[in-house]
């Protein structure tokens, strides 16, 4: 960390006051809530599980952001749309007909697998197409330029899918076996949420193996570090970048399926907010870092779920859940003031020129 002694006067002071104020507010609110004790232990556990399940989904989407960022240093604003496109298509063309014929309840696993494959393939195709048409020609342009085309692509896909499937909410049929709760170590947990958590863990492990162990994974890491040198090793940089997009998008496709399972409906605008949250999660965890994306997602999910009840309830603030994003972003600022590189990010000691 560079010395910035000359600035450590009133700005430093302000920062300390700010930090102290946030921390005091949080602690005060927490204590007040605990004294007030409106929640039963069961409810606290529920809140935590809700948070973990929501956070898992954020984590899966955040990975796409982080992968692309790691390779291209680009905020892929359209990632939320990759998430939406896969599951929208799979719902209309696969899930609904399967449910209507009753096949889904006869063969739930096979059906979900089929939906997952379709969602992944569509998400991947959309991602690859977008990369090809809107990002690749601008690979050498200043970094804000692809950000703008990404925003453009985001609008485009949103309204394209709205045109395709209409603006209404489309229900996602959940197989009967996924309904209800399961008991794990004495804690009642919804089967769908359990699925989310388990699938996320499997996907994260799988992705880690893919990136760390396989030849393709290594080529992605090499391209992330230095595109020219990677090319000198015989790595097709364009191909590696395409694979990166495809990998991130397939994670988003799976996240889409999990979303549909938990919330049982899909909508053309469903990618926007989760996309934004996942982007936040990626930065929170340290953008560019896969474990960071996972941790950031979980942290964000937990804060959103537990935060309003824990910090604000005790302060007597009206409608605290309306302010959950405020808490999330304040926490983000707090984390970044203390750790500018994010929770698991590496320090910015060396600069990429």
């Amino acid at each position, binding site marked *: 960390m560079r010395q910035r002694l000359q600035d450590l006067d009133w700005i430093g002071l302000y920062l300390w006051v700010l930090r102290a104020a946030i921390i005091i507010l949080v602690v005060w609110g927490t204590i007040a809530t605990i004294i007030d004790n409106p929640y039963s232990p069961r409810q606290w556990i529920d809140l935590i599980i809700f948070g973990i399940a929501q956070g898992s989904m954020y984590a899966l989407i955040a990975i796409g952001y982080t992968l692309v960022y790691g390779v291209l240093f680009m905020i892929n604003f359209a990632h939320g749309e990759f998430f939406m496109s896969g599951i929208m298509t799979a719902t209309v063309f696969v899930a609904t007909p399967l449910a209507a014929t009753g096949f889904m309840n006869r063969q739930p696993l096979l059906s979900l697998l089929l939906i997952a494959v379709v969602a992944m393939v569509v998400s991947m195709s959309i991602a690859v197409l977008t990369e090809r048409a809107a990002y690749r020609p601008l690979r050498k342009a200043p970094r804000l330029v692809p950000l703008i085309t990404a925003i453009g692509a985001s609008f485009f896909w949103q309204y394209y899918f709205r045109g395709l499937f209409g603006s209404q909410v489309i229900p996602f049929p959940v197989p009967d076996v996924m309904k209800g709760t399961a008991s794990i170590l004495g804690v009642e947990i919804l089967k769908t949420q359990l699925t989310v958590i388990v699938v996320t863990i499997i996907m994260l492990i799988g992705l880690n193996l893919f990136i760390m162990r396989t030849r393709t994974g290594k080529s992605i*890491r090499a391209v992330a570090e230095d595109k020219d040198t990677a*090319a000198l090793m*015989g790595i097709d940089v364009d191909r590696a970048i395409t694979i990166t997009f495809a990998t991130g998008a397939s994670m988003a496709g799976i996240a889409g399926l999990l979303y549909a399972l938990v919330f049982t409906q899909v909508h053309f605008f469903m990618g926007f907010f989760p996309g934004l949250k996942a982007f936040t999660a990626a930065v929170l965890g340290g953008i560019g870092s896969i474990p960071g994306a996972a941790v950031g997602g979980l942290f964000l999910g937990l804060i959103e779920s537990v935060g309003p009840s824990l910090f604000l309830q005790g302060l007597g603030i009206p409608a605290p859940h309306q302010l959950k994003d405020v808490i999330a972003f304040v926490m983000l600022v707090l984390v970044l003031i203390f750790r500018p590189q994010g929770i698991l990010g590496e320090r910015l000691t060396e600069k990429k020129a």
Partner: protein
Amino acid sequence: MAMLEVQDIHAYYGNIQALNGISLTVEEGEIVTLIGANGAGKTSTLRTISGLLPPRKGKITLEGEDLLKYKAHEIVYKRVAMVPEGRGIFARLTVAENLDMGAFSRDDKDGIEEDRERVYELFPRMKERITQVAGTLSGGEQQMLATGRALMTHPRLLLMDEPSMGLAPVLVESIFETIQEINKEGTTILLVEQNATMALSVADRGYVVQTGEIVLHDTAANLQQNEMVQKAYLGID
């Protein structure tokens, strides 16, 4: 037929011309060096050969085959390798992974293992640091790693860009010894150097580059004797 033939290449960065009609040849088994001042076009020449900087004009052939129709990553499969300037190692990968990346273009397991052993022979230090993350190596070690990684592609022609840059004099000598050793084992080398003294002492022939053009071409021994070269690049008045 010469192994590598570069004819009249012109290359640009944006609108700024970097190469203004470079021509050179490299014969099989040679060490050829390109010397010149900072910004003369040496690195650009290597980058055009390795495919990183497609020229606007000119011709590059490898044993008669047109190289320009290939992209950078395809040229590696023609067994032309480059040790980039400033080492260009993958700082977050381990030493072993860096070497693996060098073998990315190959799938002959036995051959890879053989080459890996050969690299460890050349640079015993690398073997000690197999699991270390490359970013934490010293400058000399990074140069070794970069060279070793290039050797892992099993090249016939090795393009080396400023291998001595930023190294302590002791290390510079050992690097150049290694270069000669690699050459003796049958790899042709095109070497770009600012340290003209060292470069000419190991090379067979040399080219002098100025502002994107070749201004002089002779055997290394003759160049060492050339007055202008002595003055400009060897620090002899």
